[in-house]
């Protein structure tokens, strides 16, 4: 067991899998000699060579497109898209090809591509380095979507993603690369060593895709969230003084409906939080699913706390970010509803 931040945990997952499985290769912009702009692939090219950790042209569509072909030829590519904000040129290859290949070929062809990409705001990245586009992927059939909230999960889930014969889009909330972030930008940053999720085995382990984690248990309210917002929710619960289940969805598709509904059936109240814009966001699906499954248990409307319906603005980052105050306000609304 080591102390790792999320970058190190991701690096360790990649290292573990490259060691274990010689077919695993990495492809992406600046991932090779340089080790990635966030250093997630640091040292891997030196260790595994230029043919397994490959610097790519600046071409997200080409990266995904060629990764599909690489995967069809028996290798297991892990592609890095430098920022989730830049994944869109690759969307056609993801939607039209990667997600559908197995289906359309009657199960004969598939390409086990994992796409890693840093997402989310809070790093003064403005509208082109802060986006959380997960909802564009969770609507697709044939792709799994993952977003971890701590180093331990990041490693275990990334290993599962790489091992999966299904394509996986793996979102890494970059605001918590170096430490958990509770949503208060004025507090000094804390390292992952202050958090249980910062303890990460050096060796191989896998966390199955499709399982949510109950991060905290309580009985008045269920908070369903993922990524950075898990930590914000934890802080907000303290402030609001409620006893809440906090559920980290972790795998957005396929969704662990059971864990969610069990909790909401118990608490009767539910808040959903994510950083992405609210309208048509992944939270809408969570509301819809829970409403369908737990309608008769609900004692108050399910409330969503999410980004506003605007691009992520540079100067108003903390007004945009659904921080503690907004989560607390959401909790109060729900708790006061009668």
């Amino acid at each position, binding site marked *: 067991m080591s102390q790792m931040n999320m970058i190190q945990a991701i690096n360790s997952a990649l290292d573990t899998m490259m060691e274990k499985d010689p077919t695993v290769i990495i492809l992406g912009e600046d991932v090779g000699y340089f080790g990635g702009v966030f250093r997630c692939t640091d040292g891997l090219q030196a260790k595994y060579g230029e043919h397994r950790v490959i610097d790519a042209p600046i071409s997200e569509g*080409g990266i995904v497109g060629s990764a599909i072909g690489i*995967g*069809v030829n028996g290798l297991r590519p892990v592609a890095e898209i430098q920022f989730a904000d830049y994944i869109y040129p690759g969307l056609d290859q993801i939607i039209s090809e990667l997600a559908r290949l197995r*289906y359309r070929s009657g199960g004969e*062809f598939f390409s086990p591509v994992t796409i890693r990409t840093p997402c989310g705001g809070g790093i003064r990245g403005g509208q082109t380095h802060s986006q959380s586009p997960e909802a564009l992927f969770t609507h697709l059939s044939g792709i799994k979507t993952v977003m971890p909230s701590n180093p331990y999960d990041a490693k275990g889930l990334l290993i599962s993603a790489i091992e999966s014969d299904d394509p996986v889009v793996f979102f890494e909330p970059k605001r918590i690369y170096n430490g958990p972030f509770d949503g208060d930008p004025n507090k000094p940053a804390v390292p992952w060593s202050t958090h249980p999720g910062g303890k990460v085995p050096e060796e191989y382990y896998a966390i199955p895709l499709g399982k949510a984690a109950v991060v905290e248990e309580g009985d008045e309210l269920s908070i369903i969230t993922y990524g950075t917002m898990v930590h914000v929710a934890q802080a907000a619960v303290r402030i609001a003084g409620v006893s809440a289940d906090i559920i980290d969805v972790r795998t957005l598709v396929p969704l662990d409906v059971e864990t969610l509904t069990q909790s909401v059936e118990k608490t009767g109240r539910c808040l959903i939080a994510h950083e992405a814009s609210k309208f048509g966001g992944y939270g809408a699906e969570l509301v819809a699913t829970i409403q369908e499954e737990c309608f008769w248990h609900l004692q108050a409307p399910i409330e969503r706390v999410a980004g506003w319906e605007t691009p992520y603005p540079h100067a108003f980052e903390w007004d945009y970010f659904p921080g503690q105050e907004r989560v607390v306000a959401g909790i109060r609304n729900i708790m006061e509803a009668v």
Partner: protein
Amino acid sequence: MTPKSRLHIPQPSARPGQPPDFSYLSLSEAGSVARPDTDAPAREIENLAQELVRVLDDDGEAKGEWVPDLTPAQLLEALRLMMLTRQLDDRMQRMQRQGKISFYMQSLGEEAVSIGQGMALDAGDMLFPSYRNQGLFILRGTSLVDMMCQCLSNTRDMCKGRQMPIMYHNKEANLFSVSGNLATQYPHAVGWAMASAIKGEDHISASWVGDGSTAEADFHYALTFAAVYQAPVILNVVNNQWAISTFQGFAGGLRRSFAARGLGLGIPGVRVDGNDLLAVYAVTQWAAQRARQGGGPTLVELVTYRGGAHSTSDDPSRYRPKDEWAAFPLGDPIERLKQHMVNTGHWSDEQHTALNDELKKTVIAAWKEAISFGTMSEGPRLDVREMFDDVYAETPQHLKQQREQLLALKRGAQ
């Protein structure tokens, strides 16, 4: 007055009612283009992207350095496969007209592309076809029945009813799944070739797109990645002059050949008479050898003509002269190979007619067998439960539930 900038709109040489005019096509004499060594530096063979490699002349004589080493038996096989492709197309086109299948796309007039190129490649080479490469499937032994069953979406459909007609694949034969999205297969081929090179294998890959599709991003991705990593891949552009209703000028084809598109990335381009099976074979063999010996990608442009409608949904008489194909200076690939074989004494008109009749019968017999596995309206049907398979490697909970939901509904409806 100084000339002024106006939006330039490319104009085809003829529209319905006008006489066909192919004067825009620059042709070379058969046998006139030299065949460079397969390791010639890209910069020294740029002429190949401009000239037109032709082996068969107008009289069916094979000429020049590109004459390939093909036995009469091989040539006959090529002829047979081209004829079979055409017979299949003809039959399926008619079956669509009769409402037996929902859609079809012929490769009429372009048969030499798939047959000539496919023959020049090894069985271990991976092919990423477009929707107009049915010949590759036939060549690599996909049975006509299997192809028809795919078009019928019936119980033996390799795609399990999930794709429109003609979206074949053949895993064992190293033929990738055809996509309805144009050009997306191009970077796949490059990635596959990269993986082959990473693994140190010497299989290469090849892919095909149409002239119109070169405007898509994937064309650029493929060329860029192929050039950067010197991937062992043959990238083919089938320039059949038309992309549905827009002629190749809307893909920039009048300014410079499609073969030239990779020159700026150091990718050699070869422009070849796509209706000359011998030239097609020779050029493909050259590019394959180049790729296998580490020379990286080649971009091959096959100059041909789309003899039929774009698809069964299309009516070309609205946008091009009816008799354009007849005026196409590179003729019909089947006629040209036939003529060559007759000239060399290995074939006759009678044999040709007999073979055609035989192939027609083969196709009809195959169709009979195919429909025994079900049609859209009659006979056995695919199990609807399969609709929920293969979305993922293992069917997840939510899809199992949806399957149950549907089955319950169907039970209820009965």
